[in-house]
Protein backbone atom coordinates (compact mmCIF):
# COMPACT_ATOMS: atom_id res chain seq x y z
CA UNK A 1 0.00 0.00 0.00
CA UNK A 2 1.64 3.24 -1.08
CA UNK A 3 1.64 6.33 1.08
CA UNK A 4 -0.69 8.21 -1.27
CA UNK A 5 -3.10 5.27 -1.49
CA UNK A 6 -3.16 5.11 2.29
CA UNK A 7 -3.95 8.84 2.42
CA UNK A 8 -6.62 8.42 -0.26
CA UNK A 9 -8.22 5.52 1.59
CA UNK A 10 -8.06 7.28 4.99
CA UNK A 11 -9.65 10.43 3.57
CA UNK A 12 -12.39 8.46 1.78
CA UNK A 13 -13.04 6.43 4.90
CA UNK A 14 -13.22 9.63 7.02
CA UNK A 15 -15.59 11.34 4.63
CA UNK A 16 -17.83 8.40 3.72
CA UNK A 17 -18.17 7.06 7.24
CA UNK A 18 -20.17 10.23 8.08
CA UNK A 19 -22.98 8.90 5.87
CA UNK A 20 -25.96 7.60 7.83
CA UNK A 21 -26.52 4.98 5.12
CA UNK A 22 -23.44 3.16 6.36
CA UNK A 23 -25.24 2.33 9.61
CA UNK A 24 -28.15 1.02 7.56
CA UNK A 25 -26.02 -1.49 5.72
CA UNK A 26 -24.04 -2.45 8.83
CA UNK A 27 -26.70 -2.57 11.49
CA UNK A 28 -30.11 -3.16 9.87
CA UNK A 29 -29.40 -6.83 9.02
CA UNK A 30 -28.16 -7.42 12.59
CA UNK A 31 -31.20 -5.66 14.00
CA UNK A 32 -33.40 -7.82 11.77
CA UNK A 33 -31.83 -11.01 13.13
CA UNK A 34 -32.47 -9.83 16.69
CA UNK A 35 -36.06 -8.95 15.82
CA UNK A 36 -36.60 -12.40 14.34
CA UNK A 37 -35.06 -13.87 17.47
CA UNK A 38 -37.51 -11.84 19.54
CA UNK A 39 -40.37 -13.04 17.37
CA UNK A 40 -39.29 -16.70 17.82
CA UNK A 41 -39.10 -16.24 21.61
CA UNK A 42 -42.53 -14.57 21.57
CA UNK A 43 -44.06 -17.42 19.54
CA UNK A 44 -42.53 -20.08 21.80
CA UNK A 45 -43.57 -18.29 24.98
CA UNK A 46 -47.19 -18.28 23.73
CA UNK A 47 -47.34 -22.07 23.36
CA UNK A 48 -47.56 -24.36 26.39
CA UNK A 49 -45.26 -27.08 25.05
CA UNK A 50 -41.90 -26.50 23.31
CA UNK A 51 -41.41 -29.13 20.61
CA UNK A 52 -38.12 -30.24 19.11
CA UNK A 53 -37.63 -29.02 15.52
CA UNK A 54 -35.53 -30.91 12.94
CA UNK A 55 -32.49 -28.67 12.31
CA UNK A 56 -33.85 -25.38 13.72
CA UNK A 57 -30.82 -23.52 12.28
CA UNK A 58 -32.38 -23.77 8.84
CA UNK A 59 -36.07 -24.43 9.50
CA UNK A 60 -36.53 -21.78 12.17
CA UNK A 61 -33.76 -19.15 12.14
CA UNK A 62 -32.36 -19.57 8.61
CA UNK A 63 -35.71 -19.55 6.83
CA UNK A 64 -36.95 -16.36 8.52
CA UNK A 65 -33.64 -14.49 8.32
CA UNK A 66 -32.87 -15.23 4.67
CA UNK A 67 -36.45 -14.56 3.56
CA UNK A 68 -35.86 -11.00 4.72
CA UNK A 69 -32.23 -10.86 3.65
CA UNK A 70 -32.81 -11.57 -0.03
CA UNK A 71 -35.21 -8.62 -0.20
CA UNK A 72 -33.33 -6.30 2.10
CA UNK A 73 -29.62 -6.65 1.40
CA UNK A 74 -29.43 -5.72 -2.32
CA UNK A 75 -31.49 -2.57 -1.68
CA UNK A 76 -29.36 -1.61 1.34
CA UNK A 77 -26.22 -2.08 -0.72
CA UNK A 78 -27.70 -0.02 -3.58
CA UNK A 79 -28.58 2.84 -1.20
CA UNK A 80 -25.17 2.70 0.47
CA UNK A 81 -23.22 2.69 -2.80
CA UNK A 82 -25.30 5.56 -4.16
CA UNK A 83 -24.64 7.53 -0.94
CA UNK A 84 -20.89 7.05 -1.49
CA UNK A 85 -21.22 8.64 -4.94
CA UNK A 86 -23.80 11.26 -3.96
CA UNK A 87 -21.36 13.08 -1.63
CA UNK A 88 -19.39 14.05 -4.71
CA UNK A 89 -22.45 15.12 -6.71
CA UNK A 90 -23.56 17.59 -4.01
CA UNK A 91 -21.95 21.04 -4.57
CA UNK A 92 -20.06 19.46 -7.49
CA UNK A 93 -17.49 18.13 -5.03
CA UNK A 94 -15.69 16.36 -7.84
CA UNK A 95 -13.92 19.73 -8.05
CA UNK A 96 -12.36 18.96 -4.66
CA UNK A 97 -11.74 15.32 -5.48
CA UNK A 98 -9.99 16.00 -8.78
CA UNK A 99 -7.78 18.83 -7.49
CA UNK A 100 -6.27 17.04 -4.52
CA UNK A 101 -2.74 15.70 -5.05
CA UNK A 102 -3.88 12.09 -5.42
CA UNK A 103 -4.41 10.32 -8.72
CA UNK A 104 -7.89 9.44 -9.94
CA UNK A 105 -7.00 5.74 -9.90
CA UNK A 106 -6.03 5.81 -6.23
CA UNK A 107 -9.18 7.73 -5.32
CA UNK A 108 -11.32 5.23 -7.25
CA UNK A 109 -9.74 2.13 -5.75
CA UNK A 110 -9.90 3.57 -2.25
CA UNK A 111 -13.64 4.16 -2.75
CA UNK A 112 -14.07 0.58 -4.02
CA UNK A 113 -12.05 -0.84 -1.13
CA UNK A 114 -14.16 1.10 1.34
CA UNK A 115 -17.42 -0.17 -0.23
CA UNK A 116 -16.27 -3.80 -0.31
CA UNK A 117 -14.94 -3.62 3.26
CA UNK A 118 -18.24 -2.25 4.54
CA UNK A 119 -20.13 -5.03 2.75
CA UNK A 120 -17.69 -7.54 4.28
CA UNK A 121 -18.11 -6.09 7.80
CA UNK A 122 -21.85 -6.13 7.36
CA UNK A 123 -21.77 -9.83 6.40
CA UNK A 124 -19.40 -10.64 9.30
CA UNK A 125 -21.70 -8.81 11.73
CA UNK A 126 -24.78 -10.61 10.36
CA UNK A 127 -22.97 -13.97 10.43
CA UNK A 128 -21.91 -13.39 14.04
CA UNK A 129 -25.40 -12.23 15.03
CA UNK A 130 -26.92 -15.30 13.34
CA UNK A 131 -24.65 -17.71 15.23
CA UNK A 132 -25.05 -15.77 18.48
CA UNK A 133 -28.84 -15.92 18.26
CA UNK A 134 -28.79 -19.66 17.54
CA UNK A 135 -26.57 -20.29 20.58
CA UNK A 136 -28.72 -17.95 22.65
CA UNK A 137 -31.87 -19.87 21.69
CA UNK A 138 -30.11 -23.16 22.45
CA UNK A 139 -29.44 -21.86 25.95
CA UNK A 140 -32.89 -20.58 26.80
CA UNK A 141 -34.86 -23.25 24.88
CA UNK A 142 -32.68 -26.38 24.72
CA UNK A 143 -35.88 -28.30 23.83
CA UNK A 144 -35.85 -26.81 20.32
CA UNK A 145 -32.56 -28.55 19.63
CA UNK A 146 -30.19 -25.92 18.18
CA UNK A 147 -27.35 -27.63 20.06
CA UNK A 148 -28.03 -30.95 18.31
CA UNK A 149 -26.94 -29.73 14.87
CA UNK A 150 -23.53 -28.51 13.77
CA UNK A 151 -24.63 -26.30 10.89
CA UNK A 152 -21.67 -23.92 10.97
CA UNK A 153 -20.21 -25.00 7.62
CA UNK A 154 -23.46 -24.40 5.73
CA UNK A 155 -24.01 -21.07 7.50
CA UNK A 156 -20.44 -19.98 6.71
CA UNK A 157 -20.70 -20.83 3.01
CA UNK A 158 -24.15 -19.27 2.73
CA UNK A 159 -22.86 -16.01 4.16
CA UNK A 160 -19.65 -16.23 2.15
CA UNK A 161 -21.57 -16.67 -1.12
CA UNK A 162 -23.89 -13.85 -0.08
CA UNK A 163 -20.79 -11.65 0.34
CA UNK A 164 -19.61 -12.53 -3.19
CA UNK A 165 -23.11 -11.76 -4.52
CA UNK A 166 -23.32 -8.44 -2.69
CA UNK A 167 -19.83 -7.45 -3.83
CA UNK A 168 -20.88 -8.05 -7.45
CA UNK A 169 -24.12 -6.13 -6.87
CA UNK A 170 -22.18 -3.26 -5.26
CA UNK A 171 -19.98 -2.94 -8.37
CA UNK A 172 -23.04 -2.93 -10.68
CA UNK A 173 -24.64 -0.28 -8.46
CA UNK A 174 -21.39 1.71 -8.46
CA UNK A 175 -21.39 1.79 -12.27
CA UNK A 176 -24.99 3.00 -12.35
CA UNK A 177 -24.39 5.55 -9.57
CA UNK A 178 -21.38 6.92 -11.45
CA UNK A 179 -23.29 7.07 -14.72
CA UNK A 180 -26.40 8.79 -13.33
CA UNK A 181 -26.58 11.68 -10.92
CA UNK A 182 -30.16 10.97 -9.84
CA UNK A 183 -30.85 8.33 -7.17
CA UNK A 184 -33.89 7.09 -9.11
CA UNK A 185 -31.79 5.07 -11.58
CA UNK A 186 -29.55 3.06 -9.21
CA UNK A 187 -32.20 2.45 -6.54
CA UNK A 188 -34.93 1.83 -9.13
CA UNK A 189 -32.69 -0.59 -11.02
CA UNK A 190 -31.89 -2.57 -7.87
CA UNK A 191 -35.60 -2.83 -6.98
CA UNK A 192 -36.48 -3.95 -10.49
CA UNK A 193 -33.66 -6.50 -10.60
CA UNK A 194 -34.71 -7.84 -7.22
CA UNK A 195 -38.25 -8.56 -8.42
CA UNK A 196 -36.99 -9.79 -11.78
CA UNK A 197 -34.45 -12.16 -10.20
CA UNK A 198 -37.14 -13.72 -7.99
CA UNK A 199 -39.37 -14.30 -11.03
CA UNK A 200 -36.60 -15.88 -13.11
CA UNK A 201 -34.75 -17.58 -10.22
CA UNK A 202 -35.60 -21.06 -11.49
CA UNK A 203 -34.46 -20.37 -15.07
CA UNK A 204 -31.01 -21.49 -16.16
CA UNK A 205 -29.97 -18.04 -17.38
CA UNK A 206 -30.60 -16.60 -13.91
CA UNK A 207 -27.06 -17.72 -13.04
CA UNK A 208 -25.86 -14.74 -15.03
CA UNK A 209 -27.83 -12.27 -12.91
CA UNK A 210 -25.96 -11.43 -9.67
CA UNK A 211 -29.19 -10.22 -8.04
CA UNK A 212 -30.39 -13.86 -8.07
CA UNK A 213 -27.60 -14.60 -5.60
CA UNK A 214 -29.42 -13.06 -2.65
CA UNK A 215 -32.51 -15.20 -3.40
CA UNK A 216 -30.25 -18.24 -3.76
CA UNK A 217 -28.87 -17.63 -0.26
CA UNK A 218 -32.28 -18.75 1.04
CA UNK A 219 -32.19 -21.84 -1.20
CA UNK A 220 -28.62 -22.58 -0.09
CA UNK A 221 -29.39 -22.56 3.60
CA UNK A 222 -32.55 -24.63 3.10
CA UNK A 223 -30.85 -27.21 0.85
CA UNK A 224 -27.64 -27.30 2.93
CA UNK A 225 -25.58 -26.39 -0.12
CA UNK A 226 -21.90 -25.64 0.52
CA UNK A 227 -20.48 -25.97 -2.98
CA UNK A 228 -19.63 -23.14 -5.35
CA UNK A 229 -21.97 -23.20 -8.34
CA UNK A 230 -22.01 -21.45 -11.72
CA UNK A 231 -23.84 -18.45 -10.22
CA UNK A 232 -21.04 -17.89 -7.70
CA UNK A 233 -18.29 -18.02 -10.33
CA UNK A 234 -20.36 -15.77 -12.53
CA UNK A 235 -20.69 -13.29 -9.65
CA UNK A 236 -16.91 -13.11 -9.38
CA UNK A 237 -16.69 -12.40 -13.13
CA UNK A 238 -19.43 -9.75 -12.83
CA UNK A 239 -17.59 -8.17 -9.90
CA UNK A 240 -14.43 -7.78 -11.98
CA UNK A 241 -16.30 -6.70 -15.11
CA UNK A 242 -18.30 -3.98 -13.36
CA UNK A 243 -15.24 -2.89 -11.38
CA UNK A 244 -13.57 -2.17 -14.73
CA UNK A 245 -16.69 -0.43 -16.09
CA UNK A 246 -16.88 1.71 -12.94
CA UNK A 247 -13.19 2.54 -13.25
CA UNK A 248 -13.68 3.65 -16.85
CA UNK A 249 -16.69 5.81 -15.86
CA UNK A 250 -14.78 7.37 -12.96
CA UNK A 251 -11.67 8.11 -15.05
CA UNK A 252 -13.66 9.96 -17.69
CA UNK A 253 -15.64 11.98 -15.14
CA UNK A 254 -15.15 15.73 -15.35
CA UNK A 255 -15.86 18.22 -12.58
CA UNK A 256 -17.81 20.69 -14.71
Amino acid at each position, binding site marked *: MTNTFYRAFS*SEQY*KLSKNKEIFGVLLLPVLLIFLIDGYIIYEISKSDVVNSIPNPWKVLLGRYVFQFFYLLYPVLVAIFVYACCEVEYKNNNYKILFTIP*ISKSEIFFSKVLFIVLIVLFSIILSYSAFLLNGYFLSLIYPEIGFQNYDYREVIFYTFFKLFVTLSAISMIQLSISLAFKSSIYPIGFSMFMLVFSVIVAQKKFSDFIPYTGSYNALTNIMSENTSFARLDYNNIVMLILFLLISYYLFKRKRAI
Partner: protein
Amino acid sequence: MKESITTKNLSYKIGFKTILNDINLNVPTGSIYGYLGRNGAGKSTTIKLLLGLLEDKNDNIFIHDKSLKQNITEIHSITGNLIESPCYYNKLTVFENLQYLNIIHKMGLRRIEEVLELVDLHREKRKKASTLSMGMKQRLGIAMAIFHDPKLLVLDEPLNGLDPQGIFEMRKLFQNLNEQGKTIFLSSHILSELEKVATHIGIIEEGNMIFQGTKNELLGRVERCVSIKVNDADSAIFVLTTLGFSIQNKETKKILVNINDDQQFNLLLKSLVQNGIEIYEIESHSANLEQIFINLISQAND
Protein backbone atom coordinates in the same frame (compact mmCIF):
# COMPACT_ATOMS: atom_id res chain seq x y z
CA MET B 1 10.35 37.92 -13.32
CA LYS B 2 9.45 34.22 -13.09
CA GLU B 3 6.02 33.13 -14.13
CA SER B 4 3.65 31.11 -11.96
CA ILE B 5 1.31 30.39 -14.86
CA THR B 6 2.25 30.33 -18.51
CA THR B 7 0.07 29.17 -21.36
CA LYS B 8 1.30 28.89 -24.92
CA ASN B 9 -1.40 29.38 -27.54
CA LEU B 10 -3.95 27.70 -25.32
CA SER B 11 -7.05 26.84 -27.31
CA TYR B 12 -10.14 24.88 -26.38
CA LYS B 13 -13.06 23.79 -28.48
CA ILE B 14 -16.35 22.14 -27.66
CA GLY B 15 -17.48 20.48 -30.86
CA PHE B 16 -16.97 23.10 -33.55
CA LYS B 17 -17.30 26.01 -31.15
CA THR B 18 -14.07 27.73 -30.14
CA ILE B 19 -14.17 28.63 -26.45
CA LEU B 20 -10.54 29.76 -26.13
CA ASN B 21 -8.36 30.92 -29.00
CA ASP B 22 -4.57 31.05 -28.64
CA ILE B 23 -4.49 32.38 -25.09
CA ASN B 24 -0.98 33.28 -23.91
CA LEU B 25 -1.26 33.89 -20.20
CA ASN B 26 1.75 35.13 -18.28
CA VAL B 27 1.06 35.35 -14.58
CA PRO B 28 4.17 36.64 -12.76
CA THR B 29 5.11 34.94 -9.50
CA GLY B 30 4.03 37.03 -6.54
CA SER B 31 1.39 38.94 -8.46
CA ILE B 32 -2.34 39.28 -7.95
CA TYR B 33 -3.61 38.70 -11.46
CA GLY B 34 -7.14 39.89 -12.13
CA TYR B 35 -8.75 37.92 -14.95
CA LEU B 36 -11.66 39.80 -16.48
CA GLY B 37 -14.22 38.99 -19.08
CA ARG B 38 -17.93 39.06 -19.69
CA ASN B 39 -20.14 36.06 -18.95
CA GLY B 40 -19.30 33.34 -21.45
CA ALA B 41 -16.01 34.99 -22.49
CA GLY B 42 -14.03 31.91 -21.46
CA LYS B 43 -12.86 32.78 -17.93
CA SER B 44 -14.17 29.67 -16.18
CA THR B 45 -12.98 27.43 -19.02
CA THR B 46 -9.48 28.91 -18.67
CA ILE B 47 -9.57 28.33 -14.91
CA LYS B 48 -10.78 24.74 -15.28
CA LEU B 49 -8.01 24.10 -17.79
CA LEU B 50 -5.43 25.63 -15.43
CA LEU B 51 -6.54 23.27 -12.68
CA GLY B 52 -6.64 20.19 -14.90
CA LEU B 53 -10.41 19.83 -14.53
CA LEU B 54 -10.64 20.10 -18.32
CA GLU B 55 -8.02 18.38 -20.40
CA ASP B 56 -5.57 20.42 -22.42
CA LYS B 57 -4.69 17.87 -25.07
CA ASN B 58 -1.79 19.88 -26.48
CA ASP B 59 0.17 20.27 -23.24
CA ASN B 60 0.21 24.08 -23.43
CA ILE B 61 -0.13 24.90 -19.73
CA PHE B 62 2.85 25.37 -17.45
CA ILE B 63 2.63 26.01 -13.72
CA HIS B 64 5.91 27.12 -12.14
CA ASP B 65 7.61 26.05 -15.38
CA LYS B 66 6.28 22.50 -15.15
CA SER B 67 3.90 20.96 -17.64
CA LEU B 68 0.48 20.61 -16.03
CA LYS B 69 -0.32 17.53 -18.05
CA GLN B 70 2.80 15.67 -16.98
CA ASN B 71 2.92 16.84 -13.35
CA ILE B 72 -0.73 17.21 -12.44
CA THR B 73 -0.53 15.57 -8.98
CA GLU B 74 2.54 17.59 -7.97
CA ILE B 75 0.95 20.80 -9.26
CA HIS B 76 -2.26 20.09 -7.32
CA SER B 77 -0.19 19.96 -4.13
CA ILE B 78 0.97 23.58 -4.63
CA THR B 79 -2.29 24.98 -5.99
CA GLY B 80 -5.41 26.01 -4.11
CA ASN B 81 -8.66 26.79 -5.84
CA LEU B 82 -12.18 28.04 -5.50
CA ILE B 83 -14.23 27.77 -8.66
CA GLU B 84 -17.61 29.49 -8.96
CA SER B 85 -19.61 28.12 -6.04
CA PRO B 86 -17.69 26.80 -3.02
CA CYS B 87 -17.24 23.04 -2.64
CA TYR B 88 -17.58 21.37 0.73
CA TYR B 89 -19.09 18.20 2.16
CA ASN B 90 -22.58 18.92 3.46
CA LYS B 91 -22.66 16.11 6.01
CA LEU B 92 -19.36 17.16 7.57
CA THR B 93 -18.90 20.03 10.00
CA VAL B 94 -16.66 22.99 9.14
CA PHE B 95 -13.86 21.41 11.18
CA GLU B 96 -14.38 17.98 9.60
CA ASN B 97 -14.21 19.45 6.10
CA LEU B 98 -10.76 20.79 6.93
CA GLN B 99 -9.80 17.61 8.76
CA TYR B 100 -10.62 15.72 5.53
CA LEU B 101 -8.06 17.92 3.75
CA ASN B 102 -5.65 17.49 6.65
CA ILE B 103 -5.65 13.72 6.13
CA ILE B 104 -4.59 14.34 2.53
CA HIS B 105 -2.11 17.16 3.05
CA LYS B 106 -0.83 16.25 6.54
CA MET B 107 -0.67 19.87 7.73
CA GLY B 108 -1.53 19.20 11.38
CA LEU B 109 -4.47 20.16 13.57
CA ARG B 110 -2.95 23.57 14.36
CA ARG B 111 -3.26 24.50 10.72
CA ILE B 112 -7.04 23.88 10.89
CA GLU B 113 -7.37 26.35 13.77
CA GLU B 114 -5.08 28.80 12.00
CA VAL B 115 -7.11 28.76 8.78
CA LEU B 116 -10.40 29.00 10.67
CA GLU B 117 -9.06 32.14 12.38
CA LEU B 118 -7.90 33.57 9.05
CA VAL B 119 -11.34 33.29 7.46
CA ASP B 120 -13.14 34.08 10.72
CA LEU B 121 -15.02 30.78 10.94
CA HIS B 122 -13.65 29.53 14.26
CA ARG B 123 -16.96 30.13 16.04
CA GLU B 124 -18.78 27.99 13.48
CA LYS B 125 -16.34 25.09 13.39
CA ARG B 126 -18.77 22.60 14.98
CA LYS B 127 -21.62 23.53 12.64
CA LYS B 128 -22.60 21.26 9.76
CA ALA B 129 -21.43 22.86 6.51
CA SER B 130 -24.95 22.60 5.06
CA THR B 131 -26.33 24.86 7.82
CA LEU B 132 -23.95 27.78 7.13
CA SER B 133 -25.10 31.01 5.50
CA MET B 134 -24.03 31.72 1.92
CA GLY B 135 -21.23 34.06 2.98
CA MET B 136 -19.92 31.53 5.50
CA LYS B 137 -19.96 28.79 2.89
CA GLN B 138 -17.87 31.08 0.71
CA ARG B 139 -15.43 31.55 3.60
CA LEU B 140 -15.29 27.77 4.07
CA GLY B 141 -14.52 27.44 0.35
CA ILE B 142 -11.66 29.92 0.73
CA ALA B 143 -10.44 28.13 3.88
CA MET B 144 -10.35 24.86 1.93
CA ALA B 145 -8.50 26.57 -0.92
CA ILE B 146 -5.74 27.98 1.29
CA PHE B 147 -5.58 25.10 3.78
CA HIS B 148 -2.45 23.42 2.38
CA ASP B 149 -0.59 26.74 2.13
CA PRO B 150 -0.42 26.67 -1.68
CA LYS B 151 2.04 28.77 -3.69
CA LEU B 152 -0.63 29.56 -6.25
CA LEU B 153 -4.28 30.35 -5.59
CA VAL B 154 -6.79 30.20 -8.43
CA LEU B 155 -10.02 31.86 -7.38
CA ASP B 156 -13.10 32.23 -9.54
CA GLU B 157 -15.59 34.72 -8.10
CA PRO B 158 -14.37 34.32 -4.50
CA LEU B 159 -16.32 37.36 -3.29
CA ASN B 160 -19.74 35.98 -4.25
CA GLY B 161 -22.20 36.09 -1.40
CA LEU B 162 -19.97 38.08 0.95
CA ASP B 163 -21.26 41.19 2.71
CA PRO B 164 -19.24 44.46 2.48
CA GLN B 165 -17.40 43.61 5.71
CA GLY B 166 -16.63 40.14 4.35
CA ILE B 167 -15.39 41.60 1.05
CA PHE B 168 -13.12 43.97 2.96
CA GLU B 169 -11.75 41.11 5.08
CA MET B 170 -11.17 38.92 2.04
CA ARG B 171 -9.36 41.76 0.28
CA LYS B 172 -7.08 42.07 3.31
CA LEU B 173 -6.60 38.28 3.35
CA PHE B 174 -5.63 38.20 -0.35
CA GLN B 175 -3.21 41.08 0.18
CA ASN B 176 -1.68 39.31 3.21
CA LEU B 177 -1.33 36.06 1.30
CA ASN B 178 0.25 37.98 -1.56
CA GLU B 179 2.70 39.64 0.81
CA GLN B 180 3.68 36.14 1.95
CA GLY B 181 4.76 35.48 -1.63
CA LYS B 182 1.71 33.68 -2.94
CA THR B 183 0.53 34.26 -6.47
CA ILE B 184 -3.20 34.85 -6.77
CA PHE B 185 -5.08 34.35 -10.02
CA LEU B 186 -8.42 36.02 -9.43
CA SER B 187 -11.53 36.35 -11.49
CA SER B 188 -14.32 38.57 -10.23
CA HIS B 189 -17.22 40.63 -11.48
CA ILE B 190 -16.68 43.18 -8.71
CA LEU B 191 -14.27 45.32 -10.76
CA SER B 192 -13.89 48.00 -8.09
CA GLU B 193 -12.53 45.33 -5.70
CA LEU B 194 -10.30 43.87 -8.36
CA GLU B 195 -8.92 47.34 -9.06
CA LYS B 196 -7.97 47.64 -5.40
CA VAL B 197 -6.08 44.36 -5.12
CA ALA B 198 -4.81 43.40 -8.58
CA THR B 199 -1.26 44.13 -9.67
CA HIS B 200 -1.77 42.61 -13.13
CA ILE B 201 -4.80 42.40 -15.37
CA GLY B 202 -5.81 40.09 -18.19
CA ILE B 203 -8.95 40.74 -20.22
CA ILE B 204 -10.59 38.08 -22.33
CA GLU B 205 -13.40 38.56 -24.83
CA GLU B 206 -15.04 35.78 -26.81
CA GLY B 207 -12.10 33.48 -26.18
CA ASN B 208 -9.45 36.01 -27.23
CA MET B 209 -7.03 37.83 -24.94
CA ILE B 210 -7.53 41.53 -25.62
CA PHE B 211 -5.24 42.90 -22.93
CA GLN B 212 -2.57 41.60 -20.60
CA GLY B 213 -0.18 43.64 -18.50
CA THR B 214 0.22 45.48 -15.23
CA LYS B 215 -2.70 47.44 -13.81
CA ASN B 216 -0.78 50.69 -14.30
CA GLU B 217 -0.19 49.86 -17.96
CA LEU B 218 -3.89 49.35 -18.40
CA LEU B 219 -4.89 52.51 -16.58
CA GLY B 220 -2.18 54.43 -18.50
CA ARG B 221 -3.69 53.43 -21.85
CA VAL B 222 -6.56 55.79 -21.30
CA GLU B 223 -6.17 59.58 -21.60
CA ARG B 224 -6.95 61.64 -18.55
CA CYS B 225 -9.51 64.33 -18.98
CA VAL B 226 -10.42 67.44 -17.01
CA SER B 227 -13.73 69.15 -16.73
CA ILE B 228 -13.39 72.95 -16.50
CA LYS B 229 -16.13 75.41 -15.62
CA VAL B 230 -15.42 78.81 -17.24
CA ASN B 231 -17.24 82.11 -17.87
CA ASP B 232 -17.07 81.74 -21.68
CA ALA B 233 -16.99 78.19 -22.99
CA ASP B 234 -16.81 79.15 -26.71
CA SER B 235 -13.72 81.35 -26.21
CA ALA B 236 -12.08 78.63 -24.09
CA ILE B 237 -12.72 76.03 -26.80
CA PHE B 238 -11.24 78.40 -29.43
CA VAL B 239 -8.07 78.94 -27.35
CA LEU B 240 -7.61 75.26 -26.56
CA THR B 241 -8.28 73.90 -30.07
CA THR B 242 -5.77 76.42 -31.47
CA LEU B 243 -3.19 74.89 -29.12
CA GLY B 244 -4.12 71.37 -30.28
CA PHE B 245 -6.20 70.18 -27.31
CA SER B 246 -9.00 67.78 -28.05
CA ILE B 247 -12.37 68.72 -26.61
CA GLN B 248 -14.46 65.78 -25.58
CA ASN B 249 -17.66 67.49 -24.52
CA LYS B 250 -19.17 70.95 -24.12
CA GLU B 251 -21.97 72.26 -21.95
CA THR B 252 -23.09 75.89 -21.43
CA LYS B 253 -20.18 76.82 -19.20
CA LYS B 254 -18.35 73.52 -18.86
CA ILE B 255 -15.91 71.81 -21.19
CA LEU B 256 -14.30 68.39 -21.01
CA VAL B 257 -10.73 68.35 -22.32
CA ASN B 258 -8.41 65.37 -22.91
CA ILE B 259 -4.88 65.72 -21.53
CA ASN B 260 -1.90 63.40 -21.73
CA ASP B 261 0.30 64.55 -18.87
CA ASP B 262 0.91 67.15 -16.17
CA GLN B 263 2.78 69.52 -18.56
CA GLN B 264 -0.26 69.67 -20.83
CA PHE B 265 -2.46 70.40 -17.84
CA ASN B 266 -0.17 73.28 -16.87
CA LEU B 267 -0.21 74.66 -20.44
CA LEU B 268 -4.02 74.44 -20.50
CA LEU B 269 -4.41 76.51 -17.34
CA LYS B 270 -1.81 79.10 -18.35
CA SER B 271 -3.31 79.68 -21.81
CA LEU B 272 -6.84 80.06 -20.45
CA VAL B 273 -5.72 82.63 -17.83
CA GLN B 274 -3.51 84.52 -20.32
CA ASN B 275 -6.51 84.85 -22.68
CA GLY B 276 -8.65 86.37 -19.97
CA ILE B 277 -10.91 83.42 -19.42
CA GLU B 278 -12.12 83.06 -15.85
CA ILE B 279 -11.91 79.56 -14.35
CA TYR B 280 -14.50 78.68 -11.67
CA GLU B 281 -14.01 74.96 -11.19
CA ILE B 282 -11.63 72.18 -12.27
CA GLU B 283 -12.38 68.49 -11.86
CA SER B 284 -10.00 65.73 -12.88
CA HIS B 285 -11.49 62.54 -14.32
CA SER B 286 -9.31 59.45 -14.33
CA ALA B 287 -10.81 56.38 -15.92
CA ASN B 288 -11.47 53.46 -13.59
CA LEU B 289 -11.13 49.78 -14.36
CA GLU B 290 -14.83 49.43 -15.08
CA GLN B 291 -14.79 52.16 -17.75
CA ILE B 292 -11.60 50.81 -19.31
CA PHE B 293 -13.04 47.30 -19.32
CA ILE B 294 -16.20 48.44 -21.06
CA ASN B 295 -14.20 50.50 -23.59
CA LEU B 296 -11.88 47.62 -24.40
CA ILE B 297 -14.75 45.19 -24.81
CA SER B 298 -16.62 47.54 -27.14
CA GLN B 299 -13.42 48.21 -29.14
CA ALA B 300 -12.85 44.47 -29.48
CA ASN B 301 -16.37 43.98 -30.76
CA ASP B 302 -16.19 46.84 -33.31
